[in-house]
């Protein structure tokens, strides 16, 4: 076994040289993740520019009209006036608005009591229904400004805060969209680099018939080709690292060193999973163009469905639950959590375990395809 591995290592080395000497490949694995992160950052930045809020004015008074004008004068807010809360929730579900603000029907009445300096029995509360995590910080900033304006202009006592906003999170999404952009960028890089490079390796072996030379080699081809795919995994991992570093710089994220170090094994494991996945695609198609087509068709649904957990109303429940077991999900979720939250060790180990399981699945398929 040791001898076989040693002899197969030379294919690993040869493939490494073969790859390094292909300038386009090097440009692809270095430049593509940076461009991707810049692009995602642009999307993220655009998300922050403007936020759509549905507002229900239940009071319909001068005071509520003034409050509405405060909201409308805010550059980062686009106000949609509606009549029913349910309508606002539907709009939120459809992704048309990020939050629904309810101006209570006792707003002007309570405002009078506050202004007359009488004792207010209940506090004056604006209810805000919003998507958990989604643009939460921006919403908070905007609404703090609005309440400050209400306090200052309608009550005349800035920052004393008799008017407050009670945020009622609608637990529709689980992650922060903007935060997800970094982990998505890393995962898309690992996914496309891994699938494309390894499917191109195995399909080229068939297409250029190098496979015949490998088949006649005394070393088992499963080790020889396996060595090449491992080489591709390392390049993919490297490309993912570039995406991560670019993401941290461009988005200005600042996770702890330990969390960054914890991302490395999961990224490497994910790179191996996608590379052996791609190797199977390349082997089955045995044609570079067909393998690229099939790879593209695999990448898009994987990325799309990995977001299924974010938009459960778009999918049946079994899909929402099922995508959690997709090979892209554990890495995506764990990198996100390591960047912005503090996952527990058991959560981390589960993510590693699911990835190992997937690696086992794709290695078995790889073995089946190259067993002869």
């Amino acid at each position: 076994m040791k001898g076989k591995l040693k002899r197969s290592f030379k294919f690993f080395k040869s493939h490494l040289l073969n790859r390094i000497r292909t300038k386009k490949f090097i440009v692809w694995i270095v430049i593509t993740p940076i461009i991707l992160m810049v692009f995602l950052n642009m999307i993220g930045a655009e998300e922050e520019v403007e936020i759509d809020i549905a507002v229900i004015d239940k009071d319909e008074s001068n005071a509520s009209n003034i409050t509405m004008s405060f909201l409308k004068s805010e550059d980062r807010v686009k106000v949609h006036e509606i009549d029913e809360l349910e309508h606002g929730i539907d709009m939120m579900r459809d992704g048309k608005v990020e939050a629904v603000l309810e101006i209570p029907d006792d707003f002007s009445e309570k405002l009078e009591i506050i202004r007359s300096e009488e004792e207010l029995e209940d506090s004056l509360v604006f209810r805000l229904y919003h998507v958990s995590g989604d643009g939460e910080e921006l919403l908070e900033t905007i609404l703090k400004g609005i309440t400050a304006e209400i306090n200052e202009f309608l009550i005349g006592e800035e920052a004393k805060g008799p008017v407050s906003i009670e945020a009622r999170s609608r637990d529709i999404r689980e992650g922060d969209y903007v935060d997800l952009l970094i982990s998505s960028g890393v995962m898309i890089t690992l996914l496309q680099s891994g699938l494309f490079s390894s499917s191109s390796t195995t399909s080229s072996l068939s297409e250029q018939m190098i496979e015949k030379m490998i088949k006649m080699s005394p070393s088992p081809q499963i080790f020889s080709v396996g060595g090449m795919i491992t080489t591709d995994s390392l390049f993919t991992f490297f490309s993912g690292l570039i995406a991560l570093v670019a993401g941290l710089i461009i988005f200005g994220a600042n996770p702890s060193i330990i969390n960054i170090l914890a991302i490395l094994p999961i990224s490497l494991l994910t790179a191996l999973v996608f590379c052996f996945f791609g190797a199977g695609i390349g082997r089955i198609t045995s044609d570079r163009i067909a393998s690229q087509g099939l790879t593209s068709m695999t990448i898009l649904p994987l990325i799309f469905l990995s977001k299924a957990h974010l938009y459960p109303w778009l999918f049946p429940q079994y899909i929402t639950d099922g995508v959690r077991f997709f090979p892209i999900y554990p890495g995506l979720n764990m990198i996100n959590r390591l960047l912005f939250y503090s996952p527990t060790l058991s959560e981390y180990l589960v993510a590693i375990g699911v990835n190992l399981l997937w690696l086992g699945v794709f290695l078995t398929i790889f073995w089946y395809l190259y067993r002869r």
Partner: protein
Amino acid sequence: MVSHLEVKNLENHKDGFSLQNISLDIEEGEILLLGGKNSSGKTTLLETICLIHKPDDGRLKFFGKKVFEKGIKSKHWRKVKERIGVQFQSASLFRNLTVRETFELFSKDRRLAEMPDVVDECHFLDNFMDKRIAKLSKGKVQLVKFMLAVMHRPDLVLLDEPVSNLDGNTRDWVYKVIKEMKSEGTSFLITLNSLWSIAKLSESLMILDDGTIYRTVKDFYRNYEGYTAKVSKGSDINSLKSENWILGIEELNDFYLVHSEQTIDKMIDMEGISILGVRDVRLEDFYPGGKSL
């Protein structure tokens, strides 16, 4: 004599092409040439013998050991592979490796510690060792592939049109290497699309046609330096049939094709024989139909 390769009733039906009922035997130090028109199945046969394509039926024995029978590959195959060398016509090499790195890669694969002797002996690659495979001419790549097939001094070598892109001098060097290895007991199966000097060393020529064996010419080396004469239909062809220097006579529509050894003098002096034309032996002379002078 030890049999190096024994093929019995080999069948392979794939991708709309069939190899049918192929049997052949190559003994130690023997060279078997495999000829035939384009798409007659030469490459498919060679690759099926190497188990690149799994045969549908038949038996394969290498060095007396059963390697394939009744659809099952035996465990001997891995050991057998170490004793054979193959040059594929269609297989590429790693384009971005240099010639030196390519030899190093396959030397290690064959457990050869250093650069093999055949590389040191070949001066046609002296200035190309540090060039990438992608930058080499077709002929040079073919030479590298030939050297990869023989560098570990195998007992059986299978070569698929090994010299089709080589110039005369390189061809002579390849001939010299094969001759040397044959004298040491190495056997060869070589496909050809035209005759070259290797025919001088060969024991037999097997012609394939549409996936089956059309004919096998024993002692083919006798043919190589002979000639082919076009003899008119009115000639006394029976008088030729009894001569031992006549290798073969084929009757075509308007004339006979007479394959003869080495000299034409004897035929010129024969009565009742009208010679219409003469030329060197060609591989095509042994194909079904398609002969011309």
